[in-house]
């Protein structure tokens, strides 16, 4: 119970749980959409999902400042690629939070005469941009790890051993591809935080892709992707070693 208390004391921990519940409800609603006998359950899920969503919007009210602070810190990073990716990601995230706050105020009735669709569209675009920058950063980190690993003597011995032992036809026909895939997997295994962050960002990417109409899936896919990324986020909050740095 101690660890549960410590986890929920962090605002980010609670937010991840609510997000996971929200997307679980969305997924459940999609799966049960054709069951006419479960109408009461469907309406309960709908209410729970919208309550989680509006509660999370309220709790995110101060996060613009957090993102600006993170952007300021990432400007001071030494590596130029990381500096660029993270600064742009945090800056677009802070703008996303501003749009989110305006949408919250509209939903409460504090602001009345705004174009909700325009603000929604721009919020989704900014979120998409921050996810793309985070993914570029992930790809850069992975490539750095792969380059470092390929120069490591211990790894080279392992790779030669793997290539010689492998009986697959594909390995014999395309040894370069096999070597690349092996290097990629070994790099990801050596730094699980990068792997976790990449999978999380990839899952999250489906949500704005669907909303912006770039790659339309359905509510079930977005629900599942949101749920998976929230669970991975919970994992990274519970085990700080799995959180990508910087």
């Amino acid at each position, binding site marked *: *119970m*101690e660890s*549960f*208390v410590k986890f*929920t*004391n*962090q*605002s*980010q*921990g*609670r937010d991840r749980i*609510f997000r996971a519940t929200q997307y679980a409800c969305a997924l459940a609603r999609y799966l049960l959409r054709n069951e006419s006998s479960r109408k009461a359950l469907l*309406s*309960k899920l709908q*209410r*729970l999902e919208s*309550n*989680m969503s*509006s*509660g999370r919007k*309220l*709790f995110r009210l*101060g*996060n613009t*400042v*957090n993102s*600006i*602070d993170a952007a300021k810190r990432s400007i001071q990073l030494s590596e130029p690629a990381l500096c660029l990716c993270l600064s742009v990601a945090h800056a677009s995230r802070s703008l996303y939070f501003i749009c989110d706050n305006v949408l919250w105020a509209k939903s*409460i*009735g*504090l602001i009345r005469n705004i174009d909700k669709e325009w603000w929604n569209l721009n919020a989704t675009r900014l979120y998409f941009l921050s996810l793309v920058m985070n993914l570029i950063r992930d790809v850069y980190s992975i490539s750095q790890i792969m380059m470092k690993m390929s120069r490591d003597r211990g790894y080279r011995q392992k790779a030669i051993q793997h290539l010689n032992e492998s009986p697959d036809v594909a390995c014999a026909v395309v040894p370069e591809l096999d070597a690349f895939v092996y290097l990629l997997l070994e790099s990801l295994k050596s730094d699980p935080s990068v792997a976790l962050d990449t999978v999380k960002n990839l899952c999250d990417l489906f949500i704005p892709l669907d909303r912006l109409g770039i790659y339309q899936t359905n509510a079930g896919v977005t629900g599942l992707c949101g749920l998976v990324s929230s669970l991975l986020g919970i994992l990274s909050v519970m085990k700080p070693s799995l959180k990508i740095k910087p």
Partner: protein
Amino acid sequence: MESWVRFNAQSQSKERLCRAVQYTCTLLGYTLQKGGAASNLLTTVKQLESHLSLSRKLLRLGNSAEALEAAKRAVHLSDSVLRLCITVAHLNRAMYFACDNMLWAGKMGLLPRLDQNKWSLRSFRYYLFALILNLARDAYEIRMLMERESRSASLSKGSLSSSPTTLSPLSPENGDLCPSPSTSLPQVTVHVRKQLHLLAFVLRNNPPLLLDLLKNLCDVFIPLDRLGLYPTGNGWVGACGLASSVLSILTILHPWLKLKP
């Protein structure tokens, strides 16, 4: 900005901020109603207040576990009175949060047959018990500190005085303060004044205790009003709620102001 980031990272601080805004809305709604404001402004304020209340219930969903953990820790305190007061107060808080969770589920429609009024009264009763125990703990701490102060003051004055005619407020040898039926009322007044002096001194030197006492005194009016035991009205409830929220935000921003244990 650093302090905001640290403040924002704790979910308790967000809940306190929401509470402060919620009670501001209560106070604002009362003032606007008295002042005869437009109905759509009143509706907006009331909508914001109920949204904040429901969202706070959502945010408090895990707090029963926290209160139980705090009660488990309080059982190991050395002082028996403190141990009793704090443990039972935490247990009452855990029950209050459990009732609060039921109310959230009822408002969500997850438990449609829930009697919201009954559970609301139940939760306010547990909250009132917890506050009374907190106030009893504050009174006990104040009493202990006052006794310690008066003992140390009489010891230091006793060691310094050389003649029995030296005026010492707490020494019984002073001839002027010899008890006699014709001078008992002024003596009682002097005694009461001394006690108040001592109380002010103790509270001034212990800001955490003073803050906790003020916070509990402000908070106690809320369940007293909601349970109908001492109805004060939305204005006073809003003002008290806002004051206690601001004081608890202060204890989060300055952890040394938090009363320990």
